[in-house]
């Protein structure tokens, strides 16, 4: 079982790495400062500092993981393993201690492993991808800061600390999306991402505040979860808190109706998209739910429902994202919508109670989606464009490595066994417990609707990835010049991620399938899913052959339809005729309307900028203007006229007669007095001296008489 046993002797005695997990974010945080202040003095512009720091973090993260595994092993099979929490007092106010610290359990270990792995590969990749950029050093400084912030966030011991990490990653995302801010669309995209996230941040603040007061004034994640599960917090408070936190998840993790910032965020450099907007930052919301699962589980009554807020949002997001991925020309936007769709899967899984499946999907998705993004970056490096229709096609001849890794990751995303995506997606689908075939967590109701949404997305995912691969790597090359394969610093990370995209799924093979010995199954769930009292007792779905076969067939069906369409018919026509449904949209009005709806992204951007934001200057503004003109203006005008009249009266009587009279008369008196006294100013010294002597004599007389 992994390297655990070999190293058990060394690590078993102490949990040093578990207790000192703060070192993991400390390395990149330090490297941020070093690069920021001294980066340009290093021969490679500071990138070597960032890589070294993240490599150290990676080593520490792996060591932490190994210690955690040995801790779980030594506890025995059914014993509860408590999370390792180390805290320091940050400040004290009114008797309440505000702590800062680390909380290490299986969930945190998975996240720090994912973050450090992807971050390390992205760092290496970036040394080639952004080479020669004018803000090369700055770029690496913020990659370091992001890594530190994300690690800080996932190791948070309390919700207050989570807010700090949450905002820090948001700021890094803003800075890195706007890395090439000289072009207006890029800085607009950065602003859009930041402002959309602010909407959800309000939810986060409210949620944290509600939970703080509901949980007897504590921010501690463990305490809040324990109290939520034991029923010490009222259901209403949990529901309000969970709803507020869901708002935060919707904005951060690009869930339906606030997902629109994520495709625009592709304006940032591709390594940033891979690291922040695919593998790590956007899963912060998913992590938030998983971390405070007691609150969500009890608040939304996940056990025993057949529908709830999280599941519905996740289900809608996954469908919306997958359908929008069809009509994109920009390869990165396809991947962005795909990310939205997969994030929807994770939220959906958490919504139906398939906690382990959600985290497992987070784990596998990070690798294959990062691989896809980095692959798209490699392609754009060659053709200097992201536009699949006008500048790509046939690239498999020139870029064999990029092609192979991209296809592997695409197949993993599509969910074809035995690649990683299949195992995690199948576990999610099983977790919904629909059709009663898996005995999931949904109690009697079972999340049947959610299962159907998930299956539909599986077909769509397979189909749009086929389209994407076809447009990029097959057909005739439509761009200019001759493309070339990228260098080793791009290819090697791609292959590492592609291998992970194949094998990452094997660490949580389902139990009932008898493919491998019992001891090798569900290792991921065994080590990651908390067993202590801060985690609700959730029912586990039984894996089902039927569902596995159905979902595989659905995915293969999606690939088959798309492949038949692209590789079969369209190739016969002109290579440019690659619009999805060009044939159908001409023939069928319904299909045409559907295509328009997708091309307009369900009119969501239109809704936000046109109706909601535009409403201020549109009809609402007109109504307000009318009200302004006819209501307020009349009052204002009347008030103005009256005040003018009153002003005249005041001017004529009070100002001209009374005030001026006083002022003038007050001038007259000194004038007259001055006329008199002027005569004393003879200019002759001796008359002055005379006055002085007379005055002195008078004073002397007064002095003598009085005293």
């Amino acid at each position, binding site marked *: 079982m992994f390297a655990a046993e070999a190293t058990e002797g060394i690590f078993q005695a102490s949990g040093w790495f578990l207790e000192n997990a703060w070192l993991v974010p400390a390395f990149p945080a330090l490297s941020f400062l070093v690069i920021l202040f001294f980066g340009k003095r290093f021969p490679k512009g500071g990138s070597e500092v960032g890589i070294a720091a993240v490599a150290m973090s990676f080593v520490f993260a792996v060591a932490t993981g190994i210690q955690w595994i040995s801790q779980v092993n030594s506890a025995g099979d059914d014993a509860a393993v408590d999370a390792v929490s180390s805290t320091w007092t940050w400040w004290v106010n009114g008797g309440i201690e505000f702590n800062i610290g680390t909380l290490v359990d299986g969930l945190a270990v998975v996240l720090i492993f994912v973050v450090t792995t992807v971050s390390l590969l992205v760092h290496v990749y970036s040394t080639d991808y952004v080479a020669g950029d004018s803000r090369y050093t700055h770029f690496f400084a913020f990659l370091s800061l992001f890594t530190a912030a994300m690690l800080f966030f996932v190791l948070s011991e309390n919700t207050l600390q989570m807010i700090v990490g949450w905002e820090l990653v948001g700021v890094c995302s803003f800075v890195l999306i706007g890395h090439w801010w000289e072009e207006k669309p890029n800085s607009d995209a950065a602003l859009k991402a930041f402002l959309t996230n602010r909407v959800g941040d309000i939810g986060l603040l409210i949620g944290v505040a509600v939970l703080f007061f509901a949980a007897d004034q504590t921010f501690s994640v463990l305490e809040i979860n324990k109290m939520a599960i034991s029923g010490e917090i009222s259901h209403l408070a949990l529901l309000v808190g969970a709803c507020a936190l869901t708002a935060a998840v919707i904005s951060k993790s690009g869930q339906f109706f606030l997902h629109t910032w994520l495709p625009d965020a592709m304006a940032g450099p591709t390594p940033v998209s891979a690291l922040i907007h695919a593998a790590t930052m956007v899963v912060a919301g998913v992590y938030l739910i998983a971390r405070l699962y007691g609150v969500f589980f009890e608040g939304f009554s996940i056990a025993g429902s057949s529908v709830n807020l999280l599941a519905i949002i996740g289900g809608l997001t996954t469908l919306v994202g997958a359908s929008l991925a069809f009509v994109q020309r920009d390869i990165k936007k396809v991947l962005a919508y795909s990310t939205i769709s997969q994030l929807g899967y994770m939220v959906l899984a958490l919504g139906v109670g398939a906690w382990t499946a959600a985290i497992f999907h987070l784990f596998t998705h990070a690798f294959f989606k990062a691989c896809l993004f980095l692959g798209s970056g490699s392609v754009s490096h060659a053709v200097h464009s992201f536009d699949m229709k006008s500048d790509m096609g046939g690239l498999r001849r020139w870029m064999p490595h990029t092609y192979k890794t991209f296809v592997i990751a695409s197949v993993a995303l599509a969910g074809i066994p035995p690649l990683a995506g299949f195992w995690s997606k199948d576990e999610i689908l099983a977790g919904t417990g629909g059709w009663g075939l898996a005995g999931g967590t949904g109690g009697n109701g079972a999340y049947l609707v959610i299962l159907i949404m998930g299956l539909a997305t599986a077909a769509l995912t397979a189909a749009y990835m086929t389209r994407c691969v076809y447009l990029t790597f097959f057909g005739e090359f439509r761009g200019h010049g001759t493309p070339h394969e990228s260098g080793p610093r791009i290819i090697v990370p791609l292959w590492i991620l592609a291998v992970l995209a194949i094998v990452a799924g094997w660490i949580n093979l389902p139990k009932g399938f008898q493919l491998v010995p019992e001891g090798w199954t569900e290792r991921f769930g065994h080590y990651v899913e908390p067993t202590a009292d801060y985690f609700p007792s959730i029912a586990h779905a039984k894996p089902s052959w039927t569902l596995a076969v159905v979902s595989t067939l659905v995915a293969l069906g999606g690939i088959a339809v798309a492949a038949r369409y692209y590789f079969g018919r369209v190739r016969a026509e002109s290579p440019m005729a690659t619009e999805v449904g060009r044939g159908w949209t001409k023939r069928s009005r319904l299909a045409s309307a559907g295509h328009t709806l997708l091309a307009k992204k369900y009119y969501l951007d239109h809704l936000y900028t046109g109706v909601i934001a535009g409403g201020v200057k549109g009809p609402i503004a007109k109504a307000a203007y009318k009200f302004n003109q006819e209501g307020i203006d009349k009052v204002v005008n009347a008030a103005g006229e009256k005040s003018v009249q009153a002003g005249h009266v005041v001017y004529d009587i009070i100002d001209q007669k009374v005030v001026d009279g006083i002022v003038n008369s007050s001038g007259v008196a000194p004038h007259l007095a001055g006329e008199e006294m002027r005569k004393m100013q003879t200019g*002759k010294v001796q008359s002055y001296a005379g006055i002085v002597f007379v005055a002195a004599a008078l004073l002397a007389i007064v002095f003598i008489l009085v005293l």
Partner: protein
Amino acid sequence: MYVSQFGVLAAVLFAIGVYGILVRRNGILVLMSVELILNSVNINLVAFGALRDTIAGEVFALFVITVAAAEVGVGLAIVLLIYRNRRSVDLSEVDLMKG
């Protein structure tokens, strides 16, 4: 020895000084009259100091003499300049500050 003798001497000098300041037209004589007044004050200071058996009177008188020297220096310079401009030191003619 009676203090009153010094007091009378000082009063006489003071009166002569006041008379000189108010009546004489010559600027230099006015300045000299000012000196007379100052000296009458000095006599008073020294006499009353001796009466009270303290040297504060003499010290004060020394200061007065020092300041008077400076004052007379400035005063004579002004008178000299007036003379250069007007070929006269008649103070009744110097009335440019008449209001």
